[in-house]
């Protein structure tokens, strides 16, 4: 059991490292999926609410390191998304891939929505309809797809169904 748990958190750590490698080291920007949010949301389902909030805050803060005008916004957004993600265990106990994809899609969309709203309060000028109804769902679908693929690889590597 402890070994399986260790493997899962190693998988989460690999997603985080991969995220920064793609976005920061290779500078791919939006052409690479948001694996940091995927890692945070997947991890949030395995810990209590407070632990999930802490995980979201730490990973969000890492994402904010190079943010000059909205430092902390990603931390706040990911804290809320991860806490709510942790509480979804009260409603859905299952671990199916379909649920996983839907969970990642909605979690990423929620994160982007909260991040946008926090940016608006700091004088953001982007068009809300464009961001929330066009860019955010596309980014959420991309992240969910990438997360699903990562989950399949992780489960097949661990011999799970």
């Amino acid at each position, binding site marked *: 059991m402890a070994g399986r748990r260790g493997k899962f958190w190693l998988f989460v750590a690999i997603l985080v490292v991969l995220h*920064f*490698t*793609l*976005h*920061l*080291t*290779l*500078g*791919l*920007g*939006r052409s*690479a999926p*948001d694996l940091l949010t995927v890692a945070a949301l997947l991890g949030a389902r395995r810990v*209590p*609410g*407070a632990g*999930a*909030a*802490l995980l*979201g*805050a730490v990973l*969000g*803060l*890492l*994402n*904010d*390191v*190079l*943010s*000059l*005008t*909205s*430092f*902390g*916004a*990603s*931390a*706040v957004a990911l*804290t*809320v998304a991860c*806490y709510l993600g942790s509480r979804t265990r009260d409603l859905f106990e299952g671990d199916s891939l379909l649920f996983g994809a839907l969970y990642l899609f909605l979690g990423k969309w929620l994160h982007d929505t909260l*991040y946008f709203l*926090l940016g608006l309060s700091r*004088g*953001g*000028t*982007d*068009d809300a309809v*464009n961001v929330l109804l*066009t*860019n955010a769902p596309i980014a959420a679908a991309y992240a969910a797809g990438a997360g699903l693929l990562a989950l399949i690889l992780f489960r097949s590597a661990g011999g799970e169904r």
Partner: protein
Amino acid sequence: MLDFDVTRRERQRDAALAGGVLALAFFLWLMPPDWQGVVRANMRATALRPFLATQEAIGARRALGVDVVQLRAQRDSLGAVAAAQGTLAEENARLRATLGLRSRLAEEYIPADVIQVGLDPAESTFLVNVGAADGVREGSIVLTPEGLLGEIWEVDEHRAQAIDWTHPEFRASAMTADGEVYGLVEVRRGRYREEDVLALTGASFHSDIGPGRRVVTSGRGVYPRGILLGTVLGIDEADTGWRKSYLLLPAVRPEAVRTVLVRVGQDQSDLSDVWNVSAPPDTASNPDTAGGG
């Protein structure tokens, strides 16, 4: 009943702890910018250091790899040679343009490589591989051979982070190259960053700037006079008899920039001659061919 109470108490405790974490995150978000800068600098120097260092190393290797690519191309086929030489010629032209620009500027500017940042929260910003040790400071302007790219906002010892003109907080006091119309240049964001353009706002309502006219910094703000910002595309909006705004085609596309010049001095002298902005547009579009030495 006992189990239910224990579970409820645990949940309340869990929710309270989560609330505390959220409050901490909000505190970080609301902290004064100076304090945030300290946290950012420390995290850049620790948690993100391997990623940033690797990116710099990759950039350096890419530069070294040009020769290898050329050699392989020569060996393989004439077509590949042509392609490699085309890339090399482009690289050469870009470096020559940067060097040429530097020769026309005072020794107050130092060359730097641009490190693009692909993180969403760092949108419209970029890193340069020069820092406080090289004389760079907050507010240093960043130039390319084509014109103004942006301004340094945060400085580490050997690295600095800058905003480019697509950043919502970018502003530059500007004028038409002939000095007839003054205003403020800011970004007009598109759906994607590639669609962003500049706008000259606050121009007087009776002004009539035709398409193709060049707009430069006026020297009234942090930027020295005469740095090329863009060329007028047309009217953006007219504000009920008071003011007009004009859309500008930016002189510099941030996503294409690889090398820049960063100002390390305090010189605010007129840079109009560097871009030869007082000459007719057809002879001044390229500073190298315009003979602006």
